[in-house]
């Protein structure tokens, strides 16, 4: 057991706990906390918070362990494809635009599903979206815990179950008690750890090995890693689909989209769009390229996922390895905490508040939200002790399933007046069906691209056809999404008095 590394990791975890505690003690003293505070921090994010929370929530085990892990065997072609998600700050904030922020303020929405509820006025859609989020994101979180605990175990010797418990207690703790503010502040801390870690690791690698020697060695021993498409089949259709799925596709993922309604002012949004891509470049290209280097520096590993952790341990002295290992851990925690909150919001705001107890006060919902977050964290932790078979299946469909469900309803709902509920429902059903079929059986029909691309085409066509074939949306819907605040409040008051 590597006590030194473990010790430094503990310090990192402790800092997160302190942040969580600090936010919680401020929260406790608030009277009348609103769900707007608990779930989206009162819409008060500034530039630094916004840029780090977007990137940290997006970047998870996949980018720090998985991506370089694939580059470890596939080569430079995989570094090229990692460019797909690098400008994600722009891909999120741009398409949703300030309209998303403005409309959510007018309607008092703290979730994407609530925006959809107002836009389409269709209970099936709301329930489907909310339930889908809960199922898929819980599965994804379990997989993150499993992956993280396994890496900790293989590196430090800490038994798997202990790793899961540490993740669970930490993340569930500060998220449940601290809400969105704790999520974001820890994201900034975790983002800085990841950023500093990236630079430190490169610096360390280049001080023990020369750039030209390593690149020459890779070229000499594995020339196919120099080619495109290369051993990973990174064809042009594949690249294109990656730029869609991991590029613009991430804008509608609920735990990412919610950030687009939580900044205080447009200057923060602009700064995030300017700085986000550069930081994303370090995370994406920087880490993937390290995977290629690892091929030569730490060869013959049993799993690509171990490339970065092994590189860290082999190249760095113990006291530096600890903080750097915190980087992939930080990536996992910063993604899971944002997912816990949107799952909690889906249960408490989208399902419970709408269909079980309409009269619940906002303060009560906020408290329920905190309790629900805790329960979700515990459920994820327990499931990670002995991950069910079903998990892999769910995870494979999780992110794509959410994307095909939400993409057109959100985007077209915001910008196309004619979009209606029938179009939205048809797009979800056809999108999910085609995605499931293409992903599991009809893989030959995907034309070499990720199945999500074809499903997006299918669901897009269904959306437009369905909308045009049926009645236009009602006046109240158009007023809510195109009208001034006065128009919106008039409609909301009328709706309030009807219920």
């Amino acid at each position, binding site marked *: 057991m590597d006590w030194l590394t473990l010790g430094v990791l503990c310090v990192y975890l402790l800092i997160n706990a302190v942040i969580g505690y600090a936010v919680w003690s401020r929260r406790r003293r608030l009277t009348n906390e609103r769900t*707007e505070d608990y779930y989206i921090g009162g819409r008060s994010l500034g530039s630094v918070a916004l840029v780090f929370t977007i990137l940290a929530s997006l970047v998870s085990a996949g980018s720090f362990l998985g991506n370089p892990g694939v580059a470890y065997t596939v080569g*430079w072609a995989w*570094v*090229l494809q990692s*460019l797909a998600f*690098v*400008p994600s700050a*722009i*891909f999120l904030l*741009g*398409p*949703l*635009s*300030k*309209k998303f922020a*403005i409309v959510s*303020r*007018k*309607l008092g929405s703290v979730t994407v599903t609530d925006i959809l509820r107002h836009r389409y006025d269709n209970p099936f859609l709301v329930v489907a979206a909310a339930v889908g989020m809960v199922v898929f994101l819980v599965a994804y979180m379990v997989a993150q815990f499993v992956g993280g605990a396994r890496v900790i175990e293989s590196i430090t010797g800490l038994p798997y179950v202990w790793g899961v418990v540490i993740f669970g207690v930490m993340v569930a703790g500060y998220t449940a008690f601290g809400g969105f503010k704790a999520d974001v502040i820890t994201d900034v801390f975790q983002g800085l750890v990841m950023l500093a870690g990236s630079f430190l690791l490169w610096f360390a690698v280049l001080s023990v090995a020369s*750039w030209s020697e*390593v*690149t020459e060695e890779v070229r000499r021993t594995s*020339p*196919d890693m*120099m*080619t*495109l498409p290369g051993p990973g089949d990174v064809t*042009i259709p594949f690249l*294109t689909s990656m*730029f869609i799925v991991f*590029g*613009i596709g991430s804008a509608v993922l609920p735990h990412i989209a919610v950030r687009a309604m939580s*900044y205080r*002012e*447009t200057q923060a949004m602009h700064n995030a*769009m*300017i700085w986000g*891509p*550069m930081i*994303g*470049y370090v995370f994406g*290209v920087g880490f993937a390229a390290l995977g290629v280097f690892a091929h030569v520096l730490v060869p013959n590993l049993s799993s690509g996922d171990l490339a970065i952790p092994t590189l860290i341990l082999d190249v760095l002295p113990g006291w530096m390895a600890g903080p750097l290992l915190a980087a992939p851990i930080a990536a996992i925690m910063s993604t899971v905490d944002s997912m816990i909150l949107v799952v909690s919001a889906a249960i408490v705001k989208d399902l419970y508040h709408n269909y079980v107890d*309409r*009269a619940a006060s*906002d303060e009560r919902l906020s408290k329920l939200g905190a309790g629900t977050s805790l329960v979700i964290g515990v459920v994820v932790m327990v499931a990670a002790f002995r991950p069910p078979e079903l998990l892999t299946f769910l995870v494979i469909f999780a992110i794509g399933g959410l994307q095909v469900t939400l993409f057109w309803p959100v985007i077209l709902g915001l*910008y196309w007046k004619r979009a209606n509920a029938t179009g939205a429902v048809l797009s979800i059903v056809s999108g999910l069906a085609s995605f499931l079929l293409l992903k599991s059986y009809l893989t030959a029909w995907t034309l070499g691209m990720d199945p999500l691309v074809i499903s997006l085409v299918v669901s897009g066509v269904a959306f437009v056809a369905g909308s045009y074939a049926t*009645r*236009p949306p*009602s*006046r109240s819907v*158009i*007023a809510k999404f*195109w009208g*001034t*605040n006065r*128009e*919106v409040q008039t409609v*909301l008051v009328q*709706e*309030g008095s009807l219920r």
Partner: protein
Amino acid sequence: MKRPDAEWPLTDIEEDPRYAQCNREMIASILYWLSYGAAVIGTAALLGYGRSATEIGYVFGIPSWMFWGAVVGLFFCAVVPTLLIKTVFANFSVAADPEAPDTLLRSDEGQV
């Protein structure tokens, strides 16, 4: 709440003037995404697609298609966003009502 279809498109709703600018920014972002993808993939494809390790050029030890793809990508990440913000994007209040930014969204609780 519902009106007969004959009245589509509705013209009597007072529209928020900020949305027109939001549309422009949305379109600019989509165009950014499209040109980013085309530039990165196009550069790499032109320089190295389908060629073996001996047929391609190398810059600083890495394949030229990768190097230039990374450079083009970096340009789109370090230079283009600032240009985009300066030329297309505008600063304005995102409050529900830009005239009264400090009001609560709803005065009643538990409704809507």
